[in-house]
């Protein structure tokens, strides 16, 4: 239970860490565009190079990226196998009689799997180098132009912040309630699926009750500190767009441009 890490943040002091979250979100969007523009497997070299440079600059160990990939390993394997089975081709590498593995299929499998790996690795670079608070802050600012269309940018960001803040608390709480019910002889491990789902009720109900109580208390605490929505609220940490941000965005655009050139030429 404790090992669930959603968008785990690794504190640091690198250039990447210090970038404005807005630029980092923008850079990630450009990076995603890059991975989708790639049409042939060896063109992945460009987003890959970009990712490696970012990784080195951020000083984050490769282990964290691999950890982020761990939960989707089943999905990756499945993607690989499905592409291997369903891609048609002429260039037969291996003939098993009922099933032929073609060169095209292997290439396609590697291509799709690599794309997913690069996407997830790039997205986790964002969450690894940006604290959840900075991230929601950046998102709020990026979305705030949409306020003219009555889009609740501030409310959305606040909700995300609160949700992120309470994930560890709820994990702790569910651990505690689980222990208490186990001490009363509750059994969460045996029986069929239906029984097991039913056995979760003694955990889920106290968890909901305490979530509502916490939400209530939090609302009171926020109001008593004069929170009244985003209107006219000033910030402790002002977001600033600085020279490194400009450079980072320009470099990213350079990568996108070179990818487009390569795509057009070859």
């Amino acid at each position, binding site marked *: 239970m404790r090992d669930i890490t959603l968008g785990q943040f690794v504190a640091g002091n690198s250039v990447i860490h210090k970038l404005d979250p807005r630029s980092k979100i923008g850079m990630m969007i450009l990076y995603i565009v890059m991975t989708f523009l790639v049409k042939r497997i060896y063109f992945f070299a460009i987003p890959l190079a970009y990712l490696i440079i970012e990784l080195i600059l951020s000083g984050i160990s490769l282990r964290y990226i691999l950890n982020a990939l761990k939960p989707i390993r089943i999905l990756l394997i499945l993607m690989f196998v499905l592409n291997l089975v369903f891609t048609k081709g002429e260039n037969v590498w291996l003939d098993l009689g009922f099933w032929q593995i073609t060169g095209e299929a292997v290439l396609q499998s590697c291509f799709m799997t690599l794309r997913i790996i690069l996407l997830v690795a790039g997205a986790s670079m964002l969450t690894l180098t940006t604290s959840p608070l900075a991230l929601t802050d950046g998102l709020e600012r990026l979305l705030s132009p949409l306020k003219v269309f009555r889009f609740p940018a501030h409310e959305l960001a606040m909700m995300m912040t609160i949700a992120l803040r309470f994930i560890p608390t709820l994990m702790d709480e569910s651990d505690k309630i689980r222990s208490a019910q186990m*001490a*009363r002889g*509750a*059994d969460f491990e045996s029986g069929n699926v239906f029984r097991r789902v039913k056995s979760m009720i003694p955990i889920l109900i106290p968890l909901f009750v305490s979530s509502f109580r916490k939400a209530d208390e939090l609302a009171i605490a926020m109001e008593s500190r004069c929170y009244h929505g985003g209107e006219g609220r000033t910030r402790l940490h002002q977001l600033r767009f600085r020279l490194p941000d400009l450079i980072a965005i320009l470099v990213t655009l350079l990568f996108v441009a070179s990818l487009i050139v390569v795509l057009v030429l070859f």
Partner: protein
Amino acid sequence: MSVVVNHLTYAYSEGGKPLPPTLIDLNFTIEEGEFLGIIGHTGSGKSTFVKHLNGLIASEKGVVTVDGHDLSEKSERKIVRSLVGMVFQYPEYQLFAETVYDDVAFGPKNMKCDEAEIKKRVVRAMELVGLDVDRFSSRSPFELSGGERRRAAIAGVLAMEPKYLVLDEPMAGLDPKGREEILALLERLRRENGCTIIMISHSMDDIARHATKVLVLEKGSVYLFDKPEIVFSHAEELMSIGLSVPNVTKICIEMNRRGVPIPKTICTENAFLNWFKEGRKHA
């Protein structure tokens, strides 16, 4: 029969790596019928220790046995869980059923008691904690007052009729009346049912008054393990590790400082009164 703790060492782990040990080489025996008070600074490992008593956590290093059942054996844990009742901190947060009756019945149901036996146990448990069966049975646990909710949750544990009752700071957040009710309940359980009580508490006064043995944990090790009057006679040592002593002990220390000799082992109002009466008789 008793609870025997033998060379118990325990370390939590995080991400597969063991953290520094929380409990270090604990050795002692809790005799049947005893009222053991556990005191110690926050983070000294009190809660971690009591979780061992019914196998919610198990250590590879060291052995805990309850009535001879070794808790490192998975097959023994089920038996021990029906012997050892566990009241966690803020037990009212574990209430979940639609009615108080159903919630109290959860434990006996899990023990596969039959309907008549469940009913008998629920009624007995509710009476013990002082919740009127007719008035409270069909009410939702969520509409009770704080003290009533705490007692309903404790009834849920008592309905399993444990031989050993473990309580982790059972009086935290209750008003004085609520605290007294819980303490009276524990005394009654011990007297009438011969239940062994193991209680973590920060109230030195309550520990001095009710405990027959006191375990002092400090940084995961046993600092003292003795009768309350002996433990609290080490007032200076206790204060040096950030713990307090009962108010009566504080008065005695002050009296000694001001030249009224009074034994260091007096830590309850009753003992103080007896000493006073003795003195008057001789005078």
